[in-house]
């Protein structure tokens, strides 16, 4: 299925008249036939000109989350880079209000009475409460670490906030403004949804549960019972990661929960990229349990792919069902495309596929032809999507364009594009960021940089079988991109002296299996990657002082004698290889006894320890699921530092210190 690019020029303020629309469609159709653009070359039109000048990232808006007023007249948009929330009049398509909130707003929710907005601020670990009419900030609510998705309950009494970095969910009493409960989620919970009947809050977790790396990933949909405010079910969604937004089809359309995902084949050698079907992208379709019979086994999970056989729609992000239940729209944030799902056809497919063959759906690249009825080219890096209350329009936030695409669902075309007012000049860093999220540089569009580094630079927590002379060997854990400036060389074998080498021809040849990036693009990309900062570390006290346990752990980290007074060889001291002068890495390769018979080398690049608390699993092959494992299971000969003389309490202290880095 071809992607339909019928986007008017940026700044188009309202849907065109029907005649003009038909004429435009005809023109585009003729052009499409004549030019036959491939999907890969179908770049969205966008505001702005390239610029080499420095423009702070905070100048860009980066719309990432939206909500609509009940009457559909006002569109509220959280813009993560500018720390702004905007209100757009959907009739005039103009920004009519704006308010500054906390650091990096990533989620937005409206109270049931429509009078209050709640905005999660990922970098300031709080939620801003805003008067939805006047746009005045009322108060700031403290929550957990890295809040993203949020929703109120049906009565507007309790706010549920997914704390992405804390792996938990804060429950805030909206009368007092205090968090009164914190529930553990899965791994990196990002987005949440209140069920249509209000009885459940669903939480999608971005990463799979931490588990042995030689098994396919299993992600979790966390289900909270809103009456008891407890976790009612932890539903396994097998074989996938990167579940993001959630929508619930109306009961008349089957009542499925739809959650975008990525389905990696990371246990196969990466060379298979060039054969396709290596990274696939789709939807989990989950039938919720009846309220009276909760528990994970009462949730039926099916998976379908949104990709086509020779074209992939990378990095599913937003999903929205139209209120009439006819359509579900899914953004492919790496392909700049919205897939339009006919929910009746999807339901037909799911209901007519015998249970024994359901698993096939998760792997069949021809499934989408049964239920995807259209692909619409939108702006760069589409994230959130919403449907209007009358099911006539859909709104798509284009993060890298600072625009919102308006889809006329009756004509199934882009009706207009709302310019939110971001800078027209595109900085080098911004260009790099656009590249980072764009999968068109990969063979068949299977992946972008962001595919394996979701959440803007994170490690996906998976081990990958990268290129090697011996296929299947040298399986290595993915590594974070946060705070890596100054930590070269790169790769676990330390062969790439800089990011230009890492992201240039090597990426094209061994990962993307395509033409890759031009030298200018590589520079842009490196500029962006170097800008990625570690999130605030909640393990540090507010005054920066270490707790007693952390201070004891620090003393262990910097010790040069064993517990019985023997001198520790300089090469076996923690701080030698993990030098605090350079992000806690010596930037050399060391053999710490962790190589297995599947590895062709024994010395590995010493990883930086900054941000180590967020980087499960550990060691080059991801065998150590927890920090403890590094020393309790994988350091039998004291080659990874002298640790055999430490008792359990001392090991705990050491870990408490490491978590502060």
């Amino acid at each position, binding site marked *: 299925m071809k992607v339909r690019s019928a986007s008017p020029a940026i700044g188009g303020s309202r849907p065109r008249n029907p005649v003009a629309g038909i004429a435009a469609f005809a023109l585009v159709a003729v052009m499409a036939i004549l030019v036959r653009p491939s999907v890969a070359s179908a770049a969205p039109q966008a505001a702005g000109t390239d610029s080499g000048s420095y423009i702070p990232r905070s100048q860009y808006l980066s719309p990432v989350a939206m909500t609509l007023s009940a009457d559909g007249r006002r569109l509220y948009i959280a813009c993560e880079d500018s720390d702004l929330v905007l209100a757009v009049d959907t009739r005039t398509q103009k920004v009519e209000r704006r308010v500054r909130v906390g650091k990096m707003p990533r989620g937005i929710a409206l109270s049931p009475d429509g009078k209050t907005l709640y905005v999660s601020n990922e970098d300031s670990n709080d939620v801003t409460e805003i008067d939805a009419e006047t746009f005045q900030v009322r108060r700031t609510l403290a929550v957990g670490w890295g809040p993203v998705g949020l929703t109120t309950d049906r009565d507007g009494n309790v706010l549920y906030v997914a704390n992405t970095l804390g792996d938990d969910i804060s429950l805030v009493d909206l009368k007092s403004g205090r968090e009164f409960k914190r529930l*553990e989620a899965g791994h990196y919970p990002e987005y949440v949804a209140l069920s249509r009947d209000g009885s459940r809050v669903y939480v999608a977790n971005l990463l799979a549960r931490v588990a042995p790396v030689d098994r396919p990933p299993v992600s979790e949909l966390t289900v909270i019972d809103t009456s008891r405010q407890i*976790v009612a*079910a*932890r539903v396994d969604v097998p074989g996938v990661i990167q579940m993001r937004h959630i929508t619930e089809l109306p009961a008349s359309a089957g009542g499925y929960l739809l959650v975008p995902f990525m389905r990696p084949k990371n246990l196969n050698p990466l060379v298979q990229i060039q054969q396709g079907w290596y990274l696939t992208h789709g939807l989990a379709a989950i039938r919720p349990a009846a309220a009276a019979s909760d528990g994970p*086994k009462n949730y039926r999970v099916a998976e379908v792919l949104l990709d086509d056989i020779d074209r992939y729609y990378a990095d599913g992000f937003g999903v929205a069902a139209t209120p009439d239940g006819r359509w579900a729209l899914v953004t492919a944030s790496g392909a700049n495309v919205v897939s339009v799902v006919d929910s009746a056809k999807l339901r037909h497919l799911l209901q007519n596929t015998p249970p024994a063959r359901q698993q096939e759906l998760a792997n069949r690249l021809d499934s989408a032809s049964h239920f995807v009825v259209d692909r619409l080219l939108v702006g760069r890096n589409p994230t959130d999507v919403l449907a209007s209350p009358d099911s006539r329009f859909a709104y798509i936030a284009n993060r890298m364009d600072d625009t919102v695409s308006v889809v006329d669902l009756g004509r199934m075309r882009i009706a207009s594009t709302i310019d939110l007012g971001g800078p027209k000049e595109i900085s080098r860093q911004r260009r790099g960021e656009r590249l980072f999220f764009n999968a068109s540089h990969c063979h068949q569009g299977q992946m972008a940089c962001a595919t394996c580094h979701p959440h803007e630079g994170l490690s996906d927590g998976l081990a990958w079988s990268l290129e090697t002379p011996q296929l299947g060997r040298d399986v290595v854990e993915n590594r974070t991109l946060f705070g890596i400036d100054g930590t070269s060389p790169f790769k676990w074998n330390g062969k790439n002296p800089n990011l230009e080498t890492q992201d240039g021809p090597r990426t094209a040849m061994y990962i993307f299996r395509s033409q890759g990036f031009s030298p200018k693009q590589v520079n842009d990309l490196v500029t962006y990657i170097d800008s990625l900062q570690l999130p605030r570390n909640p*393990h540090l006290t507010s005054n920066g002082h270490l707790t007693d346990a952390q201070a004891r752990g620090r003393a262990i980290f910097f010790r040069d004698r064993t517990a019985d007074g023997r001198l520790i060889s300089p090469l076996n001291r923690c701080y030698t290889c993990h030098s605090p002068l350079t992000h806690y890495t010596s930037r050399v390769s060391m053999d710490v006894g962790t190589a297995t018979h599947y590895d062709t080398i024994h010395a590995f690049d010493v990883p930086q320890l900054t941000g180590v608390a967020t980087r499960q699993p550990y060691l080059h092959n991801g065998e150590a699921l927890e920090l*403890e494992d590094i020393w*309790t299971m994988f350091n039998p000969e004291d080659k990874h530092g002298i640790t055999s003389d430490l008792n*359990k309490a001392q090991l*705990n202290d050491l870990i408490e210190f490491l978590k502060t880095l």
Partner: protein
Amino acid sequence: MERASAASHGRKILWAVGILILATGMAAAQNPSFYTKWTNYTSANGFPPGEVYCVTVDGNRVWAGTGHGLVLLENGRVQKVFTTKDGLAGSAVMSVAVDQLTGDVWIGTFGGLSRYSGGQFKNYTNLTSGLANDLVYGVAVQGQYLWVATTAGVNRLDTHTGSWSIFNESNAPFEEPWTYGISVGAEKIYFAVWGGGVLSYDRANHYWKPYTDPDGEMELVLYRNQGLIHNIVSSVSWNPDTKTFWASTYFGLSSYDGRNWHNYLTKDSGLPSNFINAVKSRGNQVWACTQKGLSEFNPTTNTWVTYRPDLKTGRGEILITRPDGSKRQIASSSTLAHNYILNLDFQGDDLWVATANGLSHGTRQPRKVAAIPR
């Protein structure tokens, strides 16, 4: 006239009914009800065989820890026996605590600590977490903290930050690290330490205080009511109603209300045995799980009632020890699954009792028992 006479007659009937009700009530008060209806869950009806080490009530749910897994009962029916195949950390389940805030169930096993939440287990072991030891005897929830009693000391897990702390002889007044039980009070947390007496941890000020046997004698009690009766403490129970903690030992029972100690032995109380596996107290009730039956003690009336199968015949018997030391024995048509009692919990007025041979559910019934001739 007829109407007045009828009204008078009606009033007489009302008076008569009222007096009858009052008399019945007084009679009932004079004849306190006993736990005479026992339903037993044993290998005979599909329950895991052998010892039930612990039992915890959570609403209409009952969690029972056995040597062969964790049993979940709902409304008196066995719903599921969880084993290591289901993800449980170990087969022998020694303790269960339900976090009333989050609904999470924490399970102490001899293979580590498990958390059951949303139908899934997550495990914490000595190798993979900050857990001091995989032999976990006790678990208790205090707000966002989980306290864990192990053979290598006490752990505290901050469930919000994932930070583990270990308390043992190196940083707290543990004479022995082997800790059996935990009881969370409003101001302090109490720990039963095998060979180390009772330890309390002040929640606000973060200090530890030991309570030990003043004479230090293993078998003798030299200083009665001057301290803990023995240092081998099997469990501890804080009673918020009486502001008293109770400690069961293998050599008697002790209580401390902040000023006075009281010790109880078989020779001068209604305790059927000085070997006590667990104690639990609420209101005016103190329940001692002994190796020779389950005893209820009322400190206000100084009366003891012991439930058990007759040691010889296996028939149900209820032993009553009055304040003057006089004893009375009455028969019960049903009784506990075994006289070796390991643990109990309350479900309203009902009891759930862990025994050496199954789980017992006791219901208090109006007296319908016959006296056994002595």
